[in-house]
C-alpha cells in the first residue's frame, strides 16, 4: 500500500498532483467530507434518523444558543423538527454520497456495457442503442424518478416504501447518466475492433469480446474516470434537484438535497442556519469533486502534456 502510494507520488501523474494546489485542496476537502460521512455515527453527537429520540420542542434553536423551551444548546443549531443540524449534515452527506456513488456506478456499468455492445456489433444494434441514448436524453430525470417510483410502488410492500426511495433515486439518476459513458466506450471500441490483435484473436479462436474488454477498457479508463468524477458531482446535485420537486430522499432520512429543500423555506424567516450549513457542505463537496474532475481531465489528457 505504502509502496504503491509512493509509486504514485513519484509518477508523472503524482508530480502534476503535487504541483497543483487546486488538486491538493480538492482532494483534501473530498477526503475530509467523505471520511466525515463514512464515520458519521462516530462523529455525530445525535442520531437524527431515529425519529423517536427527537424532542420537537428543541426545534429552531440557533447555533450555540440555548433553546427557548428546553434550554439545550446545539453547535450548529436545530431544524424544524428539533434535529441537530451538525448531525443531520453528517448523516445527510452519507445519504447524498451513497446515492451519488451508486448512481454513477450504475450509470457506468450500464454505459460501458451498452457502449461495448454498440461499438462492437455496429450496424443495427449500434443504431438501436444510440437511438435509445437519444430517448434517454429526452426524459427529464424527474419523470424517470416518478416512473420508477410508480412501478416500485406496485411491487414493493408499503412498509418498505420509505427505504425504497433511496434506491429509486439511485436508479433514476443512474439511468439519466449512462449516455456519456456509452459514447466514449463505443467510440474506442469502434477504433479498436479493426486492430490486428482482435482479428488475430478471432483467427486463433479466442473470444474477441473478452480480449477487447481487456484491451479497450484500459484505453478508456482515463475518460471514464473523468466522466465518473464529474457525474458524481452532477448526481449529488441532481438528487438535490429531485428533492425540490418532491421526489428526493425521505425527510426522515434526509440527504443534503432534502435538507436544502427544507432549509430554503426558512430563508426569509431568519433561521439561516437550517439552509446555510447544509448548502455550504453541498457546495464544498460538489466543488471539491468538480475541481478534482477538472484537474483529472487536464492531467490525464495526453494531448495537453
Amino acid at each position, binding site marked *: 500500500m505504502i509502496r504503491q502510494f509512493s509509486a504514485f507520488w513519484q509518477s508523472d501523474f503524482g508530480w502534476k498532483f503535487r504541483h497543483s494546489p487546486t488538486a491538493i485542496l480538492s482532494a483534501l476537502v473530498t477526503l475530509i467530507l467523505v471520511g466525515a460521512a463514512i464515520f458519521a455515527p462516530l462523529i455525530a453527537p445525535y442520531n437524527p434518523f*431515529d*425519529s*423517536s*429520540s*427527537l424532542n*420537537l*420542542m428543541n*426545534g*429552531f434553536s440557533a447555533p450555540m444558543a440555548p433553546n427557548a*423551551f428546553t434550554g439545550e444548546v446545539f453547535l450548529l443549531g436545530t431544524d*424544524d*423538527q*428539533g434535529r441537530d443540524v451538525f448531525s443531520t449534515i453528517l448523516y445527510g452527506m452519507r445519504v447524498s454520497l451513497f446515492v451519488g456513488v451508486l448512481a454513477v456506478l450504475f450509470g457506468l456499468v450500464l454505459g460501458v456495457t451498452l457502449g461495448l455492445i454498440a461499438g462492437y456489433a455496429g450496424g443495427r444494434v449500434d443504431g438501436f442503442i444510440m437511438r435509445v441514448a437519444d430517448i434517454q436524453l429526452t426524459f427529464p430525470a424527474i419523470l424517470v424518478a416518478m416512473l420508477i*417510483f*410508480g412501478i416500485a*410502488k406496485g411491487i414493493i*410492500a*408499503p*412498509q418498505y*416504501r*420509505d427505504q425504497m426511495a433511496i434506491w429509486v433515486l439511485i436508479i433514476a439518476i443512474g439511468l439519466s447518466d449512462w449516455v456519456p459513458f456509452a459514447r466514449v466506450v463505443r467510440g474506442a471500441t469502434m477504433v479498436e475492433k479493426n486492430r490486428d490483435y482482435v482479428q488475430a484473436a478471432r483467427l486463433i479462436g479466442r473470444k474477441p469480446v473478452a480480449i477487447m474488454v481487456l484491451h479497450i477498457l484500459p484505453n478508456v479508463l482515463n475518460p471514464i474516470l473523468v466522466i465518473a468524477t464529474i457525474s458524481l458531482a452532477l448526481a449529488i446535485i441532481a438528487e438535490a434537484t429531485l428533492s425540490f420537486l*418532491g*421526489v428526493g430522499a*425521505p*425527510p*426522515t432520512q434526509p440527504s443534503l438535497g432534502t435538507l436544502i429543500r427544507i432549509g*430554503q*423555506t*426558512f*430563508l*426569509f*424567516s*431568519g*433561521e439561516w442556519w437550517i439552509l446555510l450549513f447544509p448548502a455550504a457542505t453541498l457546495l464544498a463537496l460538489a466543488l471539491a469533486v468538480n475541481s478534482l474532475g477538472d484537474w483529472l481531465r487536464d492531467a490525464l489528457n495526453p494531448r495537453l502534456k
Partner: protein
Amino acid sequence: MKRNLFLSTALAVLSMGAAAHAETLRWALAGDALTLDPHAQNEGVTIMLQSQMMEPLVSRAPTGELEPTLATEWAVKADDPTVWVFKLREGVTFHDGATFDSEDVVFSMDRARSEASQMKGIITSIAEVRATGPYEVEIVTNGPNPILPAALTSIMMLDKGWTEANNAVTVQNVAAGEVTFSSTNVNGTGPYTLVSREADSRTVMRAFDNYWGKDTFPLAYSEIIFTPIQNASTRVAALLSGELDFIQDVPVQDIDRVKGTAGLKVESSSENRSVFFGLNVSDTLVAGNIDGKNPLADLKVRQAINMTINRDAIRDVVMRGQSVPAGIIMPPFVNGWTEELNAYPAPDNDAAKALLAEAGYPNGFPITVDCPNDRYINDEAICQAAVGMLGQIGIQARLNATSKALFFPQVNAMETDFYMLGWGVPSYDSEYIFNFLYHTRDESFGSWNSTRYSNPELDAQIKAIAAEVDLAKRDAMIAEMWATAKNDLAYIPVHHQMLNWAMKDGLTVTVDPDNQARVKYFALN
C-alpha cells in the same frame, strides 16, 4: 439604497405604472383557476377567481353568515317543506348589458345540475327549479332540505341568452375533449369584468360600471391583476420586494418577516379546515397483520395514539402558533361544534404505553404513515413530528410522504393504514362531515372514508339528519352522533388550520374562513 442607472430607470417605469392605476390590486397565491366555466370545476381557487366576476343567489360573507346576493330573500314555502322560494334582486345587469331575471336562474341551476357539471354533487337534493314570476323562483327538493341556501353559495348565475348564443349551454366536458366558449369568457353580474387572461400567468379584471352593489360594498379597486406564484419563497419575495399588494397562503415561518417589513401586515383567522389522521380500523392491515391482527382495530391502541400526539408542540414549533389544536375533525365554524367536543387529551406517553401493553403490544408494532407533501400547511413536517411521537411509545412508524397526485389515489383506493387528511366544510354543517367521512363507504356515501369504519347505527342517523326539518331535534341528533364518532377514534384529530393573508398596510380585509378572497369587500384607508 444603491442602484445603478439602468435599473433605477426600470424601477421608475414600474412605479409610474403603479401611480397611474392607483387602485390596482396586485394579488398572488399558489394556484390558478382551472377554468372560467362556473360549473365545470368544483375547486377553491377556480371558484374564488370566478366569484370576482360572477355571483350566486346567496353568498357567504367573510364574517360567516349568509348574505343576500342575487336573491334578496328566501324562505321555505308555508304549505310545502320541500319547496324554497327565492325573491330575486331587481335591476341587475350582466356585463354585456342583459337584464338578470328568473329565466337566468332556472337556466343556470339546470346547467349546474346537468350531467357534466361538477357542481351537481353539492345540490343533489334539488328536484326542480321553476320560475314563478320574473323575479321569483321556487326550488323543489327531494324531501325537506333545511340547509339548501348554504349549498347555493358557489353556484354562479349565467345569462341564458349569452350562453345560448355562444353555444355554451352544456357544461364543458373535458373528458370528451370538448372546448367551450364559457371556459375562457365571462359574462356575469359580478363587480369585475374580465379584461384578459393567460392561464398560470396573469388574469386582469376591471371594475364593472353597472354593478348593482356599487353603493353596498367598498369596491376600493378599479383593477385586479391576479398572478399565481407556485413557489412559496418566490411568492413571499415578490411581496417583500413590493411587486405585490396581497398574497394568500403565506408560509407560517414567513409571517414574522412580513409583519416586520415596513408597509406590510398579516391578517389571520381560523380556516374552515381540519387536519387529522385516518386509521384503518378493519380486521386486516394493508401492510399485513401483526400476529394475525390489526392493532389499529383495537380502540385502546387508537386511544394510545390519540394520547401521544402532542398537538401543542406541533402548534408551537411546526405551525409556529398558527393552528388550533383539535379534539374533533370539525372546524370551529361548523354547526355542531362545541368547546367540549374539541377537548383533546394532554400528551401522556406513560398512559399511552400502558394502553398499548393492555392491548397486547407492549413493544409496539410497525406502521407506515402516508402523507401528502404539497397539500396542507406543513403537511410533511406534521407527519414527521407525528412519526417521532409515535416512536416514543414504541410504535415503529415510517413516513411515506408523496405528492398529492400519488397520495390521493392511494387514499381513495384504501391502500393505506394510517394517512393524513384535511377537510373543509363548505356547507358549515356537520352532516357534510358525517356523509363523506363516517358513513360506511358505498356507491354514494362515505366516499372519503378510507378508514373502513362502519357503524350501521350512525349510518341511519346520517340519513335521518339530512331530512330533519326540526332544527332543535336535528342539533340534538348531531350532538349524539359526534359523541359516538369522538369515542370511536377512527380519526385522530390534529388541528384546525389558520389562514394568513399578507397585504399592504392601507388595506382592510376580513379573512374569509374558506380562503375565498373577494375583492369587492376590500377597503382602502
